[in-house]
């Protein structure tokens, strides 16, 4: 009876997503039972849900290594090693954000259950985005992710900046969804189906790229470039980063980037592969513009959240370089992106964990000057921040170096020497602006004496982030193997 529609294994394949949805809804109702001082239990429940999802994903991994991808729900949902790894990063990043949020929300006076429910549901959207192989599934997943983010950005309702960031994010995000959707409608017109594999077949049958497929590709990519904050669709990034609650800035800078990049890779490889020469040209242009703007604009920033906004933009530029190499059929290009995303998630969340400690009662603490004198008042935190900043700048033996190294390697293997040189030049620029923060921490005097807002949640988050940043940097082999295994399904 049931098998007439879907196979039983289909439901097993979406178990992590189903679990997270159930926990998200449970948090929503559980919140009503809690007294004001017990609100941290919401976070605990959310963490349990994320833990279950992570364990389930971990169980999928050995089943899929070396195997063909599992295609469920009539070919609309693909579970492969790539999807599982991306989902694991998303779940871990969400868990770290939950840990960061507890103390922070208390200080902001907005410790509500909805916050955690929205985080979990946003993660569900991301997980479907990573696995979807049908335009309808991808669109709904993208919107689920985005709608939760808009609300979370404006979560501090009485804060003017938070509101303003939310409305900007929402308007530009909805506009980009419109663009993306228009591209999807044209792809459907070309392919006669919403399945990525069929669209790829039809695109390959067309004689040469005609105007229709050009327009379809450009509108689709414009929508995706917005989601990953690539120039010229990056304008929302600094404002949203500055205005959003800091824990949400940390979230938006990592998890949606991982999900959107996974989605981007799947669209490009699974559907638009016949047009790889065309999207390679576009990607080269956009990545150069993104690296240039991100790196140069970061130099002059004074607000640390805005600073990280531009720093994220520059990292997106590097990630796009991996796609340039991948368009030449280079496997290492995609491997580099996967490693970079893994590394980026931990180092960026680590850096934000330090920033979040600066937010204390009556003290916003989001200017670079607020970090001044950190070495004198909390040497441990200052050292951790130094590690994260070195990693973000790509200095060995931290994880950031491994990420950048593989990007450079893939560019050289495919003969894009000028891009590799440009990337190295910008890495030097990045070193300069990351060191501005180091100078503030180690050379300047502290502006205030208000104690830092540390807590068990932030400590655990910092521990995980620094452990992964150093582990991947010093002993990268297992992670490289994992990334290689993750991109294998695209080239078989």
């Amino acid at each position, binding site marked *: *009876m*049931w098998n*007439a*529609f879907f196979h039983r294994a289909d439901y097993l394949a979406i178990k992590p997503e189903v679990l997270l*949805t159930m926990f998200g*809804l449970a948090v*929503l*109702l559980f919140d*009503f039972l809690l007294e004001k001082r017990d609100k941290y239990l919401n976070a605990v429940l959310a963490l349990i849900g994320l833990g279950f999802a992570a364990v389930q994903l971990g169980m999928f991994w050995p089943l899929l290594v070396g195997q063909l991808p599992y295609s469920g729900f009539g070919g609309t949902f693909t579970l492969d090693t790539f999807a599982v790894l991306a989902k694991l990063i998303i779940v871990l990043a969400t868990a770290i954000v939950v840990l960061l949020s507890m103390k922070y929300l208390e200080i902001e006076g907005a410790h509500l259950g909805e916050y955690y429910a929205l985080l979990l549901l946003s993660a569900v959207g991301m997980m479907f985005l990573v696995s979807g192989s049908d335009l309808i599934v991808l669109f709904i997943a993208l919107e689920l992710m985005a709608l939760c983010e808009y609300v979370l950005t404006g979560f501090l309702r009485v804060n003017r900046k938070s509101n303003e960031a939310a409305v900007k994010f929402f308007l530009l995000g909805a506009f980009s969804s419109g663009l993306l959707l228009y591209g999807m409608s044209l792809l459907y017109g070309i392919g006669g189906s919403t399945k990525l594999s069929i669209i790829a077949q039809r695109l390959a049958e067309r004689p040469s790229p005609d105007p229709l497929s050009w327009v379809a590709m450009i509108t689709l990519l414009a929508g995706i470039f917005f989601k990953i904050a690539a120039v010229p669709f990056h304008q929302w990034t600094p404002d949203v980063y500055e205005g959003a609650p800091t824990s949400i800035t940390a979230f938006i800078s990592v998890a949606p980037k991982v999900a959107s990049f996974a989605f981007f890779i799947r669209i490009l490889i699974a559907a638009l592969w016949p047009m790889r020469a065309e999207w390679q040209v576009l990607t080269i242009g956009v990545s150069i513009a993104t690296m240039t703007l991100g790196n140069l604009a970061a130099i002059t920033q004074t607000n640390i959240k805005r600073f990280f906004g531009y720093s994220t933009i520059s990292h997106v530029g590097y990630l796009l370089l991996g796609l340039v190499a991948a368009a030449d059929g280079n496997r290492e290009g995609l491997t580099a992106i996967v490693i970079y995303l893994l590394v980026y998630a931990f180092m960026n969340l680590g850096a934000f964990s330090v920033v979040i400690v600066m937010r204390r009662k009556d003290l916003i603490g989001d200017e670079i000057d607020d970090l001044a004198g950190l070495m004198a008042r909390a040497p441990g935190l200052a050292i951790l921040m130094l590690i994260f900043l070195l990693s973000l700048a790509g200095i060995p033996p931290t994880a950031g170096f491994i990420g950048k190294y593989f990007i450079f390697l893939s560019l050289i293997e495919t003969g894009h020497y000028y891009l590799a040189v440009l990337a190295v030049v910008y890495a030097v620029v990045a070193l300069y602006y990351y060191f501005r923060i180091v100078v503030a921490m180690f050379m300047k005097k502290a502006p205030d004496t208000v104690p830092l807002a540390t807590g068990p949640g932030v400590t655990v988050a910092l521990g995980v982030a620094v452990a992964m940043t150093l582990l991947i940097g010093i002993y990268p082999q297992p992670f490289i193997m994992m990334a290689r295994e993750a991109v294998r399904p695209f080239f078989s």
Partner: protein
Amino acid sequence: MLNQYGPIVIFAVIAAAFPVALLWLAKFVRPSFKPTPEKVMPYECGITPESDARGRYTVRFYVIAILFVIFDVETVYLYPWAVQYQALGLFGLVEMLVFLGILIIGYIWLWKRGALEWI
């Protein structure tokens, strides 16, 4: 092409010309219009209006409208299911109950949060 659309064009021209011609003709008959403050009021011979007609109204209407839109549009999924109820059978019923269950959790949430209260 021209033959097909010819009648439509003629119809459109006549439709546009007729009211214009009538208005122009009436100009010769009607008294000339001299506006006075009383004449430009919304109700010339009623109660004197006290403020602009496009006044603000309370934001609570928006909240109700938002909730209505959400729960109204979700029924778009119920129709195809209802039409194909026989073919989908138990599978369709269970899937639809899951869908409605999630909606009901949302409904309970907004009820408990007080979104339906008229404060």
